[in-house]
Protein backbone atom coordinates (compact mmCIF):
# COMPACT_ATOMS: atom_id res chain seq x y z
CA UNK A 1 0.00 0.00 0.00
CA UNK A 2 2.05 2.86 -1.30
CA UNK A 3 1.03 6.25 -0.02
CA UNK A 4 1.60 9.28 -2.12
CA UNK A 5 2.81 11.53 0.67
CA UNK A 6 3.06 14.53 -1.63
CA UNK A 7 -0.50 14.88 -2.80
CA UNK A 8 -2.00 14.13 0.55
CA UNK A 9 -0.98 17.37 2.11
CA UNK A 10 -1.34 20.04 -0.55
CA UNK A 11 -4.40 21.90 0.47
CA UNK A 12 -4.91 20.53 3.92
CA UNK A 13 -2.23 22.37 5.81
CA UNK A 14 -2.63 26.01 6.42
CA UNK A 15 0.67 27.60 7.18
CA UNK A 16 -0.87 29.57 9.96
CA UNK A 17 -2.54 26.95 12.06
CA UNK A 18 -0.97 23.64 12.89
CA UNK A 19 -3.11 23.73 15.97
CA UNK A 20 -2.41 20.97 18.30
CA UNK A 21 0.06 18.28 18.85
CA UNK A 22 -0.60 14.92 17.22
CA UNK A 23 -2.88 13.10 19.62
CA UNK A 24 -2.36 9.44 20.29
CA UNK A 25 -5.31 7.51 18.90
CA UNK A 26 -5.20 5.29 21.96
CA UNK A 27 -5.20 8.13 24.40
CA UNK A 28 -8.33 7.72 26.52
CA UNK A 29 -9.19 11.33 27.26
CA UNK A 30 -8.23 12.97 24.01
CA UNK A 31 -9.24 10.35 21.51
CA UNK A 32 -9.93 12.30 18.37
CA UNK A 33 -10.84 10.25 15.36
CA UNK A 34 -9.02 10.86 12.10
CA UNK A 35 -11.91 12.72 10.58
CA UNK A 36 -12.13 14.95 13.61
CA UNK A 37 -8.50 15.82 13.30
CA UNK A 38 -8.95 16.44 9.58
CA UNK A 39 -11.83 18.77 10.23
CA UNK A 40 -9.92 20.61 12.90
CA UNK A 41 -7.09 21.14 10.47
CA UNK A 42 -9.33 22.27 7.71
CA UNK A 43 -8.80 25.97 7.40
CA UNK A 44 -12.15 27.04 6.09
CA UNK A 45 -15.25 26.24 8.04
CA UNK A 46 -18.05 24.78 5.94
CA UNK A 47 -21.33 26.06 7.26
CA UNK A 48 -24.20 23.69 6.72
CA UNK A 49 -27.09 25.79 5.48
CA UNK A 50 -30.49 24.45 6.40
CA UNK A 51 -32.36 26.94 4.27
CA UNK A 52 -32.41 26.52 0.50
CA UNK A 53 -31.97 30.20 -0.15
CA UNK A 54 -30.56 31.21 -3.47
CA UNK A 55 -28.48 34.21 -4.37
CA UNK A 56 -28.38 35.93 -7.73
CA UNK A 57 -24.98 36.99 -8.99
CA UNK A 58 -24.60 39.41 -11.88
CA UNK A 59 -21.42 39.36 -13.97
CA UNK A 60 -19.81 42.39 -15.54
CA UNK A 61 -21.44 41.67 -18.90
CA UNK A 62 -24.92 41.57 -17.37
CA UNK A 63 -25.45 37.82 -17.17
CA UNK A 64 -27.13 36.53 -14.03
CA UNK A 65 -26.40 33.31 -12.19
CA UNK A 66 -28.61 31.86 -9.51
CA UNK A 67 -26.71 29.83 -6.91
CA UNK A 68 -27.39 28.30 -3.53
CA UNK A 69 -26.39 30.52 -0.68
CA UNK A 70 -24.11 27.76 0.62
CA UNK A 71 -22.19 27.90 -2.66
CA UNK A 72 -22.14 31.69 -2.84
CA UNK A 73 -20.69 32.12 0.64
CA UNK A 74 -17.58 30.20 -0.36
CA UNK A 75 -16.66 33.71 -1.40
CA UNK A 76 -15.92 35.76 1.69
CA UNK A 77 -16.68 38.92 -0.28
CA UNK A 78 -20.19 37.71 -1.12
CA UNK A 79 -20.61 36.38 2.41
CA UNK A 80 -19.93 39.83 3.86
CA UNK A 81 -22.23 41.47 1.36
CA UNK A 82 -25.04 39.14 2.41
CA UNK A 83 -24.33 39.76 6.07
CA UNK A 84 -24.32 43.50 5.46
CA UNK A 85 -27.69 43.20 3.80
CA UNK A 86 -26.64 44.24 0.29
CA UNK A 87 -27.97 41.11 -1.34
CA UNK A 88 -31.65 41.82 -1.66
CA UNK A 89 -32.05 41.66 -5.38
CA UNK A 90 -28.80 40.56 -6.92
CA UNK A 91 -25.14 40.98 -6.21
CA UNK A 92 -23.29 42.82 -8.96
CA UNK A 93 -19.76 41.63 -9.65
CA UNK A 94 -18.35 44.24 -12.01
CA UNK A 95 -14.89 42.73 -11.96
CA UNK A 96 -15.85 39.27 -13.14
CA UNK A 97 -16.99 38.28 -16.61
CA UNK A 98 -19.68 35.65 -17.14
CA UNK A 99 -17.15 33.20 -18.54
CA UNK A 100 -15.02 33.36 -15.41
CA UNK A 101 -17.96 33.59 -13.04
CA UNK A 102 -19.46 30.39 -14.38
CA UNK A 103 -16.13 28.61 -13.81
CA UNK A 104 -15.88 29.99 -10.28
CA UNK A 105 -19.41 28.84 -9.51
CA UNK A 106 -18.57 25.39 -10.88
CA UNK A 107 -15.58 25.26 -8.51
CA UNK A 108 -17.51 26.40 -5.48
CA UNK A 109 -20.35 23.97 -6.17
CA UNK A 110 -17.96 21.04 -6.36
CA UNK A 111 -16.19 22.00 -3.18
CA UNK A 112 -19.36 22.58 -1.20
CA UNK A 113 -20.77 19.24 -2.33
CA UNK A 114 -17.72 17.40 -1.02
CA UNK A 115 -17.59 18.13 2.72
CA UNK A 116 -16.01 14.94 3.96
CA UNK A 117 -12.56 15.57 2.61
CA UNK A 118 -11.32 12.78 4.79
CA UNK A 119 -12.82 9.89 2.86
CA UNK A 120 -10.34 8.55 0.39
CA UNK A 121 -12.61 8.46 -2.65
CA UNK A 122 -13.98 11.95 -2.13
CA UNK A 123 -10.51 13.32 -1.59
CA UNK A 124 -9.10 11.75 -4.76
CA UNK A 125 -12.14 12.90 -6.68
CA UNK A 126 -11.74 16.49 -5.52
CA UNK A 127 -8.06 16.44 -6.31
CA UNK A 128 -8.59 15.27 -9.87
CA UNK A 129 -11.35 17.85 -10.27
CA UNK A 130 -8.94 20.56 -9.16
CA UNK A 131 -6.23 19.27 -11.48
CA UNK A 132 -8.57 19.38 -14.46
CA UNK A 133 -10.06 22.68 -13.40
CA UNK A 134 -6.78 24.52 -13.89
CA UNK A 135 -6.07 23.02 -17.31
CA UNK A 136 -7.02 26.23 -19.04
CA UNK A 137 -5.18 28.76 -21.13
CA UNK A 138 -3.00 31.23 -19.35
CA UNK A 139 -5.21 34.22 -19.74
CA UNK A 140 -8.15 32.35 -18.19
CA UNK A 141 -5.91 31.16 -15.38
CA UNK A 142 -4.88 34.70 -14.58
CA UNK A 143 -8.49 35.86 -14.78
CA UNK A 144 -9.36 33.12 -12.28
CA UNK A 145 -6.66 34.42 -9.95
CA UNK A 146 -8.06 37.91 -10.20
CA UNK A 147 -11.59 36.66 -9.60
CA UNK A 148 -10.57 34.47 -6.64
CA UNK A 149 -8.72 37.45 -5.21
CA UNK A 150 -11.64 39.82 -5.64
CA UNK A 151 -14.22 37.33 -4.42
CA UNK A 152 -11.88 36.20 -1.63
CA UNK A 153 -12.12 32.44 -2.18
CA UNK A 154 -9.00 31.16 -0.44
CA UNK A 155 -8.97 27.61 -1.77
CA UNK A 156 -9.41 28.72 -5.38
CA UNK A 157 -6.75 31.39 -4.94
CA UNK A 158 -4.37 28.81 -3.44
CA UNK A 159 -5.07 26.39 -6.28
CA UNK A 160 -4.57 28.89 -9.09
CA UNK A 161 -1.54 30.59 -7.57
CA UNK A 162 0.08 27.22 -6.94
CA UNK A 163 -0.54 26.28 -10.58
CA UNK A 164 1.19 29.41 -11.80
CA UNK A 165 4.02 28.87 -9.31
CA UNK A 166 4.48 25.35 -10.69
CA UNK A 167 4.75 26.88 -14.14
CA UNK A 168 7.50 29.19 -12.97
CA UNK A 169 9.53 26.53 -11.17
CA UNK A 170 12.72 25.58 -12.92
CA UNK A 171 12.55 28.27 -15.59
CA UNK A 172 15.16 30.88 -16.37
CA UNK A 173 14.13 34.55 -16.18
CA UNK A 174 13.90 34.74 -19.96
CA UNK A 175 11.66 31.69 -20.10
CA UNK A 176 9.46 33.12 -17.36
CA UNK A 177 9.15 36.39 -19.25
CA UNK A 178 8.19 34.59 -22.40
CA UNK A 179 5.59 32.42 -20.66
CA UNK A 180 3.90 35.35 -19.01
CA UNK A 181 4.56 38.02 -21.60
CA UNK A 182 6.43 40.20 -19.14
CA UNK A 183 8.61 42.99 -20.36
CA UNK A 184 12.15 43.06 -19.04
CA UNK A 185 12.56 46.52 -17.58
CA UNK A 186 16.12 45.96 -16.43
CA UNK A 187 18.72 47.56 -18.64
CA UNK A 188 21.66 45.24 -19.30
CA UNK A 189 23.83 47.33 -17.01
CA UNK A 190 21.27 47.30 -14.19
CA UNK A 191 20.83 43.57 -14.53
CA UNK A 192 24.58 43.04 -14.50
CA UNK A 193 24.96 45.17 -11.40
CA UNK A 194 22.13 43.50 -9.54
CA UNK A 195 23.41 40.03 -10.35
CA UNK A 196 26.88 40.94 -9.23
CA UNK A 197 25.88 42.46 -5.91
CA UNK A 198 23.43 39.74 -5.01
CA UNK A 199 25.02 36.47 -5.92
CA UNK A 200 23.08 33.86 -4.02
CA UNK A 201 23.92 30.23 -3.54
CA UNK A 202 22.51 27.65 -5.97
CA UNK A 203 23.14 29.88 -8.97
Amino acid at each position, binding site marked *: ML*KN*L*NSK*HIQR*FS*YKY*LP*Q*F*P*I*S*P*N*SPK*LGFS*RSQIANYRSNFPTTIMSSSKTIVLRSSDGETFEVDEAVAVESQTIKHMIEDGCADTSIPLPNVTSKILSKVIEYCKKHVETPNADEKVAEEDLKSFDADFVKV*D*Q*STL*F*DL*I*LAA*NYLNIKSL*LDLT*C*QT*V*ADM*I*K*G*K*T*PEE*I*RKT*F*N*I*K*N*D*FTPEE*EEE*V*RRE*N*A*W*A*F*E
Partner: protein
Amino acid sequence: MGEKTCKSMSLLKLAEERESMKKKLDEEKQKQQLDSVPYLPKDCVSNILIRLPIESLQQSRFVCKPWYGIIKSPTFIRDNLHRAEKVLIFLSPVKRLSRWWDQDSDSGFRFQENPNTFSVESKVFELKSVHMLLQPLVNPTFKYAIKFMVLEDGKSTTRDYNATCMGRIRASVDGLIVVDNALEKGELVIMNPVTRKLNLLPLGTLYPPHDESFALVCCNAGGYKLVHMFRDESQFIGCEVLKIGEKSWRDIDGPSFGLIKWFGYDPVFAIGALHWVPEIDHSEYIVTMTIDDEKFHKIMLPKTSRFNDRIMEAYERLCFVTHEEVNEISIWVLGSLSEEAWTNTYTIAVGCIRDLIPLYFTRFKWELYFLDKDGSVFCFDFEDQHMKKVTTTKGCFKLANGEYTLHVNSLVSWQT
Protein backbone atom coordinates in the same frame (compact mmCIF):
# COMPACT_ATOMS: atom_id res chain seq x y z
CA MET B 1 1.07 38.24 -75.61
CA GLY B 2 2.81 35.52 -73.57
CA GLU B 3 4.81 38.20 -71.75
CA LYS B 4 1.74 40.14 -70.72
CA THR B 5 0.10 37.06 -69.18
CA CYS B 6 3.38 36.27 -67.46
CA LYS B 7 3.49 39.76 -65.97
CA SER B 8 -0.13 39.68 -64.88
CA MET B 9 0.48 36.23 -63.46
CA SER B 10 3.40 37.50 -61.38
CA LEU B 11 1.39 40.53 -60.25
CA LEU B 12 -1.40 38.22 -59.22
CA LYS B 13 1.06 36.11 -57.38
CA LEU B 14 2.47 39.16 -55.58
CA ALA B 15 -1.02 40.23 -54.60
CA GLU B 16 -1.76 36.75 -53.30
CA GLU B 17 1.42 36.64 -51.31
CA ARG B 18 0.74 40.02 -49.78
CA GLU B 19 -2.76 38.88 -48.90
CA SER B 20 -1.51 35.74 -47.15
CA MET B 21 1.16 37.68 -45.29
CA LYS B 22 -1.41 40.16 -44.06
CA LYS B 23 -3.57 37.29 -42.89
CA LYS B 24 -0.62 35.78 -41.08
CA LEU B 25 0.24 39.05 -39.37
CA ASP B 26 -3.36 39.56 -38.34
CA GLU B 27 -3.50 36.06 -36.89
CA GLU B 28 -0.33 36.63 -34.92
CA LYS B 29 -1.65 39.89 -33.60
CA GLN B 30 -4.84 38.17 -32.50
CA LYS B 31 -2.85 35.39 -30.90
CA GLN B 32 -0.75 37.89 -29.03
CA GLN B 33 -3.82 39.64 -27.74
CA LEU B 34 -5.27 36.34 -26.58
CA ASP B 35 -2.01 35.32 -24.98
CA SER B 36 -1.39 38.62 -23.36
CA VAL B 37 -1.93 37.97 -19.71
CA PRO B 38 -3.95 40.41 -17.69
CA TYR B 39 -2.07 42.53 -15.25
CA LEU B 40 -1.88 40.97 -11.79
CA PRO B 41 -1.84 43.17 -8.71
CA LYS B 42 1.19 42.96 -6.47
CA ASP B 43 -0.41 40.87 -3.77
CA CYS B 44 -1.39 38.22 -6.30
CA VAL B 45 2.14 38.12 -7.70
CA SER B 46 3.37 37.88 -4.11
CA ASN B 47 0.96 35.02 -3.46
CA ILE B 48 2.43 33.18 -6.46
CA LEU B 49 6.08 33.89 -5.72
CA ILE B 50 5.79 32.88 -2.08
CA ARG B 51 5.14 29.31 -3.20
CA LEU B 52 8.41 29.00 -5.08
CA PRO B 53 11.41 27.17 -3.66
CA ILE B 54 14.43 29.36 -3.06
CA GLU B 55 16.25 28.31 -6.24
CA SER B 56 13.28 29.41 -8.34
CA LEU B 57 13.08 32.65 -6.36
CA GLN B 58 16.63 33.36 -7.42
CA GLN B 59 15.66 33.17 -11.07
CA SER B 60 12.40 35.00 -10.59
CA ARG B 61 14.18 37.94 -9.09
CA PHE B 62 15.61 38.98 -12.41
CA VAL B 63 12.42 38.75 -14.44
CA CYS B 64 11.46 42.38 -13.98
CA LYS B 65 11.84 45.17 -11.45
CA PRO B 66 8.47 44.76 -9.72
CA TRP B 67 9.25 41.08 -9.07
CA TYR B 68 12.68 42.04 -7.78
CA GLY B 69 11.10 44.52 -5.42
CA ILE B 70 8.57 41.99 -4.15
CA ILE B 71 11.20 39.35 -3.40
CA LYS B 72 13.38 41.89 -1.65
CA SER B 73 10.62 43.27 0.56
CA PRO B 74 10.75 42.45 4.30
CA THR B 75 7.16 41.11 4.39
CA PHE B 76 7.94 38.66 1.62
CA ILE B 77 11.12 37.54 3.34
CA ARG B 78 9.23 37.05 6.58
CA ASP B 79 6.43 35.07 4.92
CA ASN B 80 8.99 33.00 3.08
CA LEU B 81 10.67 32.23 6.39
CA HIS B 82 7.38 31.10 7.89
CA ARG B 83 6.93 28.62 5.06
CA ALA B 84 10.44 27.21 5.21
CA GLU B 85 10.78 23.60 6.29
CA LYS B 86 13.58 22.47 8.58
CA VAL B 87 16.76 21.06 7.09
CA LEU B 88 20.00 19.77 8.58
CA ILE B 89 23.07 21.84 7.83
CA PHE B 90 26.49 20.22 8.10
CA LEU B 91 30.08 20.46 6.96
CA SER B 92 31.70 18.01 4.64
CA PRO B 93 35.45 17.92 4.01
CA VAL B 94 36.37 19.18 0.59
CA LYS B 95 37.79 16.39 -1.48
CA ARG B 96 41.33 17.12 -2.42
CA LEU B 97 42.13 16.98 -6.08
CA SER B 98 45.71 15.95 -5.47
CA ARG B 99 48.41 16.46 -2.93
CA TRP B 100 48.62 20.14 -2.37
CA TRP B 101 52.34 20.39 -2.05
CA ASP B 102 52.89 18.95 -5.50
CA GLN B 103 51.27 21.84 -7.20
CA ASP B 104 52.93 25.12 -7.90
CA SER B 105 52.00 27.96 -5.58
CA ASP B 106 49.36 29.46 -7.85
CA SER B 107 46.99 26.61 -8.51
CA GLY B 108 47.70 24.56 -5.40
CA PHE B 109 45.71 26.66 -3.00
CA ARG B 110 42.69 27.63 -5.01
CA PHE B 111 40.01 25.04 -4.62
CA GLN B 112 37.38 26.71 -6.73
CA GLU B 113 35.75 23.62 -8.10
CA ASN B 114 32.82 25.78 -8.97
CA PRO B 115 33.45 29.35 -10.12
CA ASN B 116 30.59 30.45 -7.93
CA THR B 117 32.10 28.95 -4.78
CA PHE B 118 31.93 31.32 -1.89
CA SER B 119 34.65 31.15 0.72
CA VAL B 120 33.85 32.47 4.16
CA GLU B 121 37.48 33.22 4.86
CA SER B 122 37.97 35.15 1.60
CA LYS B 123 34.91 37.23 2.33
CA VAL B 124 36.20 37.96 5.82
CA PHE B 125 39.49 39.17 4.37
CA GLU B 126 37.55 41.31 1.96
CA LEU B 127 35.64 42.86 4.86
CA LYS B 128 38.88 43.51 6.68
CA SER B 129 40.34 45.00 3.51
CA VAL B 130 43.19 42.57 3.43
CA HIS B 131 44.58 42.46 -0.07
CA MET B 132 44.35 39.11 -1.76
CA LEU B 133 48.12 38.82 -2.07
CA LEU B 134 48.55 39.33 1.66
CA GLN B 135 46.06 36.65 2.63
CA PRO B 136 47.75 33.69 4.25
CA LEU B 137 48.04 30.60 2.13
CA VAL B 138 45.46 28.22 3.43
CA ASN B 139 46.05 24.54 3.77
CA PRO B 140 43.04 23.15 1.95
CA THR B 141 43.04 20.06 4.16
CA PHE B 142 40.99 22.01 6.64
CA LYS B 143 38.41 23.30 4.24
CA TYR B 144 34.81 22.20 4.52
CA ALA B 145 31.98 22.55 2.11
CA ILE B 146 28.76 23.76 3.70
CA LYS B 147 25.90 21.51 2.71
CA PHE B 148 22.44 20.70 3.89
CA MET B 149 20.24 17.66 3.95
CA VAL B 150 16.56 17.78 3.08
CA LEU B 151 14.34 15.00 4.40
CA GLU B 152 11.11 14.87 2.50
CA ASP B 153 8.66 12.29 1.15
CA GLY B 154 10.70 9.41 2.43
CA LYS B 155 13.86 10.56 0.66
CA SER B 156 16.99 12.27 1.84
CA THR B 157 18.75 14.69 -0.50
CA THR B 158 22.02 16.48 0.09
CA ARG B 159 22.50 19.88 -1.48
CA ASP B 160 25.39 22.24 -1.67
CA TYR B 161 25.52 25.93 -0.89
CA ASN B 162 28.72 26.14 -2.98
CA ALA B 163 30.35 27.72 0.02
CA THR B 164 33.37 26.68 2.01
CA CYS B 165 34.56 27.49 5.45
CA MET B 166 37.19 26.22 7.79
CA GLY B 167 35.57 26.52 11.16
CA ARG B 168 32.57 24.96 12.82
CA ILE B 169 28.97 26.01 12.55
CA ARG B 170 28.15 27.21 16.05
CA ALA B 171 24.48 28.12 15.92
CA SER B 172 21.56 28.63 13.58
CA VAL B 173 18.19 30.34 13.65
CA ASP B 174 15.82 31.64 10.96
CA GLY B 175 18.31 30.82 8.23
CA LEU B 176 21.23 32.66 9.80
CA ILE B 177 24.28 30.75 10.98
CA VAL B 178 27.22 31.66 13.17
CA VAL B 179 30.49 30.20 11.94
CA ASP B 180 34.04 30.32 13.25
CA ASN B 181 36.47 32.40 11.33
CA ALA B 182 39.11 29.73 11.68
CA LEU B 183 41.98 31.97 10.72
CA GLU B 184 41.48 34.31 13.65
CA LYS B 185 41.12 32.63 17.00
CA GLY B 186 37.77 33.16 18.61
CA GLU B 187 36.42 35.32 15.85
CA LEU B 188 32.89 34.58 14.76
CA VAL B 189 31.00 35.41 11.63
CA ILE B 190 27.24 35.61 11.08
CA MET B 191 25.96 34.78 7.65
CA ASN B 192 23.05 33.58 5.61
CA PRO B 193 24.38 30.76 3.42
CA VAL B 194 21.67 31.36 0.80
CA THR B 195 22.07 35.10 0.25
CA ARG B 196 25.75 35.01 1.26
CA LYS B 197 25.46 38.14 3.31
CA LEU B 198 28.15 37.94 5.91
CA ASN B 199 29.36 40.02 8.79
CA LEU B 200 32.01 39.83 11.46
CA LEU B 201 30.98 39.70 15.08
CA PRO B 202 32.87 41.45 17.86
CA LEU B 203 35.17 39.25 19.90
CA GLY B 204 33.78 37.82 23.10
CA THR B 205 35.37 35.72 25.77
CA LEU B 206 37.60 33.09 24.26
CA TYR B 207 37.27 29.55 25.51
CA PRO B 208 38.28 26.10 24.30
CA PRO B 209 35.51 24.67 22.16
CA HIS B 210 34.50 21.72 24.26
CA ASP B 211 33.57 23.80 27.26
CA GLU B 212 31.23 26.24 25.66
CA SER B 213 27.87 26.51 24.02
CA PHE B 214 26.42 28.99 21.55
CA ALA B 215 22.85 29.75 20.62
CA LEU B 216 21.36 32.19 18.18
CA VAL B 217 17.84 33.31 18.97
CA CYS B 218 15.39 35.85 17.70
CA CYS B 219 14.03 38.41 20.10
CA ASN B 220 10.37 39.23 20.52
CA ALA B 221 11.00 42.84 19.64
CA GLY B 222 12.89 41.84 16.51
CA GLY B 223 16.57 41.38 15.91
CA TYR B 224 18.79 38.51 16.97
CA LYS B 225 20.87 37.64 20.00
CA LEU B 226 23.85 35.36 20.28
CA VAL B 227 24.16 33.67 23.65
CA HIS B 228 27.51 32.26 24.72
CA MET B 229 27.90 30.03 27.76
CA PHE B 230 31.27 28.76 28.87
CA ARG B 231 32.92 27.11 31.84
CA ASP B 232 36.23 28.33 33.22
CA GLU B 233 38.87 26.40 35.17
CA SER B 234 37.10 26.91 38.48
CA GLN B 235 34.00 25.22 36.99
CA PHE B 236 32.21 28.55 37.17
CA ILE B 237 29.80 29.01 34.29
CA GLY B 238 29.92 32.38 32.64
CA CYS B 239 27.45 33.75 30.20
CA GLU B 240 27.53 36.63 27.75
CA VAL B 241 25.04 37.91 25.23
CA LEU B 242 25.58 39.83 22.02
CA LYS B 243 22.73 41.62 20.34
CA ILE B 244 23.58 41.32 16.65
CA GLY B 245 24.39 44.78 15.42
CA GLU B 246 25.83 46.01 18.69
CA LYS B 247 29.53 46.44 19.17
CA SER B 248 30.15 44.49 22.34
CA TRP B 249 29.02 41.55 24.38
CA ARG B 250 27.17 41.92 27.65
CA ASP B 251 27.97 39.76 30.63
CA ILE B 252 24.93 38.32 32.32
CA ASP B 253 24.45 36.15 35.38
CA GLY B 254 24.90 32.55 34.38
CA PRO B 255 22.98 29.62 35.79
CA SER B 256 23.71 28.62 39.39
CA PHE B 257 26.93 26.82 40.06
CA GLY B 258 26.85 23.16 39.16
CA LEU B 259 23.58 23.32 37.30
CA ILE B 260 25.04 22.48 33.90
CA LYS B 261 27.60 19.72 33.80
CA TRP B 262 28.02 19.22 30.07
CA PHE B 263 27.76 21.44 27.03
CA GLY B 264 27.60 18.73 24.41
CA TYR B 265 23.95 19.08 23.44
CA ASP B 266 22.93 22.02 21.27
CA PRO B 267 20.60 24.36 23.14
CA VAL B 268 17.00 24.33 21.95
CA PHE B 269 15.06 27.50 21.24
CA ALA B 270 11.36 27.12 21.98
CA ILE B 271 8.49 28.88 23.72
CA GLY B 272 10.44 32.10 24.03
CA ALA B 273 13.41 30.59 25.82
CA LEU B 274 16.61 28.63 25.40
CA HIS B 275 16.87 25.20 26.95
CA TRP B 276 19.92 23.16 27.79
CA VAL B 277 20.04 19.52 28.82
CA PRO B 278 22.76 19.66 31.46
CA GLU B 279 24.15 16.13 31.37
CA ILE B 280 25.00 13.62 28.74
CA ASP B 281 22.89 10.99 30.49
CA HIS B 282 20.49 10.83 33.43
CA SER B 283 19.36 14.45 33.33
CA GLU B 284 16.50 15.14 35.72
CA TYR B 285 15.93 18.70 34.65
CA ILE B 286 16.71 21.23 31.94
CA VAL B 287 18.19 24.69 32.36
CA THR B 288 16.12 27.39 30.75
CA MET B 289 16.94 30.98 29.94
CA THR B 290 14.08 33.28 28.97
CA ILE B 291 15.19 35.44 26.06
CA ASP B 292 13.70 38.73 27.09
CA ASP B 293 14.87 39.01 30.67
CA GLU B 294 17.88 36.73 30.28
CA LYS B 295 17.20 34.94 33.55
CA PHE B 296 17.92 31.29 34.21
CA HIS B 297 15.45 28.78 35.59
CA LYS B 298 15.41 25.08 36.18
CA ILE B 299 12.57 23.01 34.78
CA MET B 300 12.13 19.43 35.92
CA LEU B 301 11.68 16.85 33.23
CA PRO B 302 8.77 14.43 33.55
CA LYS B 303 11.27 11.58 33.68
CA THR B 304 15.02 11.11 33.51
CA SER B 305 16.51 11.98 30.17
CA ARG B 306 18.88 9.34 28.84
CA PHE B 307 21.62 9.65 26.26
CA ASN B 308 19.25 8.90 23.38
CA ASP B 309 16.45 11.20 24.52
CA ARG B 310 16.11 14.72 23.26
CA ILE B 311 14.24 17.94 23.81
CA MET B 312 13.23 19.89 20.74
CA GLU B 313 10.93 22.54 19.40
CA ALA B 314 7.76 21.21 17.75
CA TYR B 315 4.66 23.04 16.54
CA GLU B 316 5.56 26.05 18.71
CA ARG B 317 5.87 24.00 21.86
CA LEU B 318 8.73 22.45 23.75
CA CYS B 319 8.79 18.74 23.37
CA PHE B 320 10.62 15.94 25.19
CA VAL B 321 11.05 12.73 23.22
CA THR B 322 12.08 9.91 25.49
CA HIS B 323 12.57 6.16 25.30
CA GLU B 324 10.53 4.09 27.69
CA GLU B 325 11.65 0.80 29.22
CA VAL B 326 9.86 -1.45 26.80
CA ASN B 327 10.33 -0.71 23.09
CA GLU B 328 8.40 2.55 23.20
CA ILE B 329 8.96 6.24 22.74
CA SER B 330 6.80 8.70 24.57
CA ILE B 331 6.40 12.34 23.69
CA TRP B 332 5.85 14.96 26.35
CA VAL B 333 4.87 18.52 25.59
CA LEU B 334 5.26 21.78 27.44
CA GLY B 335 3.05 24.38 25.81
CA SER B 336 4.53 27.41 27.51
CA LEU B 337 6.74 28.37 30.42
CA SER B 338 3.72 29.18 32.56
CA GLU B 339 2.49 25.61 32.36
CA GLU B 340 2.87 23.62 35.53
CA ALA B 341 3.71 20.27 34.08
CA TRP B 342 4.47 18.37 30.92
CA THR B 343 1.68 16.57 29.12
CA ASN B 344 2.20 13.10 27.76
CA THR B 345 0.61 13.42 24.37
CA TYR B 346 1.82 10.47 22.40
CA THR B 347 3.40 7.05 22.52
CA ILE B 348 5.15 5.47 19.58
CA ALA B 349 5.22 1.72 19.79
CA VAL B 350 6.07 0.55 16.30
CA GLY B 351 9.28 -0.82 14.98
CA CYS B 352 12.58 -1.40 16.68
CA ILE B 353 13.18 1.96 18.22
CA ARG B 354 15.57 1.42 21.07
CA ASP B 355 18.59 3.02 19.42
CA LEU B 356 16.83 5.76 17.55
CA ILE B 357 17.81 9.30 18.43
CA PRO B 358 15.14 11.90 17.72
CA LEU B 359 16.19 14.48 15.12
CA TYR B 360 13.35 16.92 14.60
CA PHE B 361 9.65 17.37 13.97
CA THR B 362 8.71 18.75 10.56
CA ARG B 363 6.90 22.05 10.66
CA PHE B 364 4.04 21.41 8.26
CA LYS B 365 3.43 17.71 8.54
CA TRP B 366 2.99 15.45 11.50
CA GLU B 367 6.28 13.66 11.14
CA LEU B 368 9.17 12.98 13.47
CA TYR B 369 12.59 12.04 12.13
CA PHE B 370 15.04 9.77 13.93
CA LEU B 371 18.68 8.94 13.47
CA ASP B 372 19.89 5.41 13.90
CA LYS B 373 23.37 4.59 15.10
CA ASP B 374 24.52 3.53 11.64
CA GLY B 375 23.55 6.89 10.18
CA SER B 376 20.25 5.86 8.60
CA VAL B 377 17.26 8.10 9.08
CA PHE B 378 13.76 7.00 9.98
CA CYS B 379 10.53 8.91 9.74
CA PHE B 380 7.53 8.35 11.95
CA ASP B 381 4.34 9.56 10.35
CA PHE B 382 1.72 10.36 13.01
CA GLU B 383 -1.15 10.01 10.61
CA ASP B 384 -0.22 6.60 9.27
CA GLN B 385 1.46 5.58 12.51
CA HIS B 386 4.22 4.08 10.44
CA MET B 387 7.93 4.14 11.01
CA LYS B 388 9.57 4.28 7.62
CA LYS B 389 13.20 4.22 6.66
CA VAL B 390 14.27 7.20 4.61
CA THR B 391 16.02 6.25 1.40
CA THR B 392 19.24 8.00 0.55
CA THR B 393 20.43 8.83 -2.92
CA LYS B 394 23.75 7.38 -3.98
CA GLY B 395 26.72 9.00 -2.33
CA CYS B 396 24.56 10.83 0.14
CA PHE B 397 26.22 12.02 3.28
CA LYS B 398 25.59 9.89 6.31
CA LEU B 399 24.89 11.89 9.41
CA ALA B 400 26.76 11.16 12.54
CA ASN B 401 25.37 12.18 15.87
CA GLY B 402 26.29 15.74 16.70
CA GLU B 403 27.66 16.66 13.29
CA TYR B 404 24.64 18.56 12.07
CA THR B 405 22.70 21.63 13.09
CA LEU B 406 19.01 22.25 12.64
CA HIS B 407 18.48 24.98 10.06
CA VAL B 408 15.97 26.53 7.69
CA ASN B 409 16.77 28.12 4.35
CA SER B 410 15.61 31.69 4.18
CA LEU B 411 16.47 35.11 2.81
CA VAL B 412 16.58 36.69 6.23
CA SER B 413 19.19 39.24 7.17
CA TRP B 414 20.13 40.19 10.72
CA GLN B 415 19.66 43.84 9.89
CA THR B 416 16.22 44.99 10.90
